[in-house]
């Protein structure tokens, strides 16, 4: 049953609480979306890990090329002015 055509791989995302983001927790095999959601519920939420589940076919995820990580990410390293840390925050605003 683990044949990859009959039982493709799905990536599972769980939201731990309202207001937080869905977070990748792992993967599983299932025949279709409905069964993938059920399997995700059974495999990844047995200990009250969350209140919402997303599943997505692993093959539908496009990933950046690790070989291009230098040209993708290194140019941001010396642009500290993009961080919002150069403003004086009025006392009335409090903690941001």
């Amino acid at each position, binding site marked *: *049953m*683990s044949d990859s055509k009959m039982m493709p791989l799905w990536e599972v995302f769980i939201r731990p609480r309202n207001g937080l983001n869905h977070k990748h927790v792992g993967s*599983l*095999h299932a025949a*279709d979306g409905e069964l993938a959601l059920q*399997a995700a*519920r*059974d495999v990844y939420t*047995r200990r009250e890990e969350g209140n919402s589940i997303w599943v997505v076919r692993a093959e539908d995820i496009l990933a950046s090329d690790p070989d291009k990580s230098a040209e993708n990410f290194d140019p941001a390293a010396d642009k500290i002015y993009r961080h919002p840390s150069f403003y004086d925050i009025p006392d009335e605003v409090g903690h941001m």
Partner: protein
Amino acid sequence: MAESQQHLQAAVLQIADDHLILGHRLSEWCGHAPMLEEDLSMPNMALDLIGQARHLYAYAAVLEGKGRSEDDLAYLRTDREYTNCLMVERGNTDFAHTMLKQLYFAAFMKPFWSFVENSSDSTLSSIAGKAVKEISYHIRHCGEWVIRLGDGTDESAQRMQQAVDALHPYTEELFWCDDHRQACIDDGVLPAEHVVRPQWQTTINAVFDQARLSTPEVTFPLLGGREGKHTEEFGFLLAELQYMQRAYPGAQW
């Protein structure tokens, strides 16, 4: 103990036995499921059922008032003292049989618990509140599998239909009503057949339509468990279920 309490105790014990035996059967899949995901989901459901059985046994023990515990009722009775219906003790055979057996049972228990949730017995209604959520998921999970196997490959369709032909004659016993059950129905504690059967039928029909399964005509319903008359394989099940308490009486961990 008052007569009505005696009836309630016997009726609760029937339901407790159904849950323990079905849960035990399902737990036999642990480590043997066709895929890892189901290896978690079947024991999950088994634990739901055994958890419900514990609450029911604890209540039956209180109603009985003879100082027996839930463990005494679960592990230290003889085969003829168990009053579960025959379907729940049937061997697992294959995945199709197992999913169908769970579906038949869950489709029955959902309207059953829904009624009990609003019944006059506060202990039972609190058990029902938790159970109805668990059993709703069993219907969904097992129903989806029955649909996929019934409307799947030639072989899966054939084996799913074989499971229906084999198990359908056992479904009649779910609706068994003896003096105990009838007294509880009259007291408004448990639902009458006319409350449960239409919903059971609707659930099964909806799944079978999608699964392209046909329901065989039952000319000879298979009954007996509610009167303590069990199948041969029940003895083997009890031997394994009771081994620990029989070999090490009072063992705890």
